[in-house]
């Protein structure tokens, strides 16, 4: 599989992590309409190229962080701010898979 560069534990096998999906701005909870919430929940860019995504190091430090990954080659790097996650992203954990 691939090595995910955890900013706290170093490169570890992807099977230690839960993939939380692409980063997407969360709507303002005071003003968002149901349609905006549904867009936020369901619609994905699913780009074939560089994406920004969130990982949860389930079998490691237990922290959330962000990476940039090329979805065609799986080249992966921590975001320039050191993988700092937005709190909102950490809470939602959107994304389908993660059976491990």
């Amino acid at each position: 599989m691939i090595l995910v560069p955890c900013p706290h534990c170093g490169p570890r096998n992807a099977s230690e992590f839960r993939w939380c999906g692409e980063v997407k701005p969360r709507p303002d909870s005071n003003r968002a309409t149901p349609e905006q919430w549904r867009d936020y929940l369901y619609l994905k860019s699913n780009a074939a190229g560089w994406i920004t995504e969130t990982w949860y190091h389930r079998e490691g430090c237990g922290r959330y962080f962000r990476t940039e990954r090329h979805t065609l080659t799986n080249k992966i790097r921590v975001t320039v701010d050191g993988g700092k996650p937005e709190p909102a992203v950490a809470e939602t954990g959107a994304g389908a898979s993660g059976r491990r």
Partner: protein
Amino acid sequence: MGVGKLWRGISPGDGRNDAGRLPRLRGRYSAWSLFRHGLTGEDWPLVWRSHELKPSYDVVIIGAGVHGLAVAYYLARNHGIRDVAVLDRGYLGGGNSGRNTAIVRSNYITPEGVRFYNRSVKLYEQLAAELNFNVMFSQLGHLTLAHTDSSLRTMRWRAEVNKLEGVRSEVIDPREIKRLVPYLDVSPNVRYPILGALYHVPGGIIRHDAVNWGYARGVDAQGVQIHQKTEVTGIDVEEGRVAAVRTSRGRIATRCVLNCTAGWSSVVAAMAGVTLPIVTYPLQAAVTEPVRYFLGAVVVSGTLHVYVSQTDRGELVFGASVDPFASYSTRGSLEFTEELAGQILELMPSIAKVRLVRQWAGLCDMTPDFSPVMGVTPVEGFHVDVGWGTYGFKAGPVSGEAMAQLVASGRTPELIAPFSLSRFSQGQLVGEKGAASVGH
């Protein structure tokens, strides 16, 4: 096995084939034609031709897999629409239509899903006769094992929904399972004892390449053009309506475009400015060396994330759940084979000495509710037949038939109305998570 001959039609745009010696394509396969060719030794006619790209078509179908070809086939056969181009970036049936594990079944959990796939099974049953092409459909039965009380409950639920829709499914006990598949370990002394199974009688396996080739032959015989190695690079939308498709071989003016591109559907939809509720995950599969026929049915275990069938050649074909993160890479991983081996040996310890010879991956366009997305989009003339995730091949004929009806009539057929793109904005999801695949 004649693959070289099938593929002689692949070179795009040499034009020679059109004018040349190929009109004999329409000859039917029969015992007589086999006898005649055996005597004369002459070449078999090509199964499909290649063409020059025309500047315009009534309908452009993106993706020459089973879905794209089936839509083209039923457009021509049922509705007389023949000015159609089926485009593919690579070669015909080279995407998921040639990478899936070829299981056909209809034992879903929602009435919408059961009705839909049951129609597909019925079409597959007639397909060989209809296409005059042996698609090798073996309805040897399909077992979904239950290892926990909760999954046994789900099996009962599925069986009842199936029966109400007239589909033959029933819950059977371990003794009966042992009778159907003697090589399964049904003893209680394992980590995940088998408590029962959903036995789906009409389920089975099919030769997926033959389905693609058969449809391609039928499509070509009706005058529809298949264009391989023709990559779509853009879709022109004017005033909210499709105007043209730009390809690596030139621009095609058209008012109607169908996106049948499986894993790549988000990328193609984005060209028309449509965002889909889809995330693309690789799904890996593997195959063993051929062994003598011993596996009486397709065996699936959701708890162990594995399914297995035996092909007519004797190979065991395995599949599992999707990879744990989204990607367009089709590279296999060691984790997959390790986990697969552990889980399949839990079920069938006796195959420990059989060697795996190959593994590969396909790209699954997963939706949030594990149901497909079929029908119209906010862009007029741009239709989608996507979101098939891990279960697209078994739906090829029925979605082709329904999408053809939609294109021809402009109205969404009732059978596919529950699967519209607008269900996500309306909150009307069709939850198939419990029955769509393993390991979710």
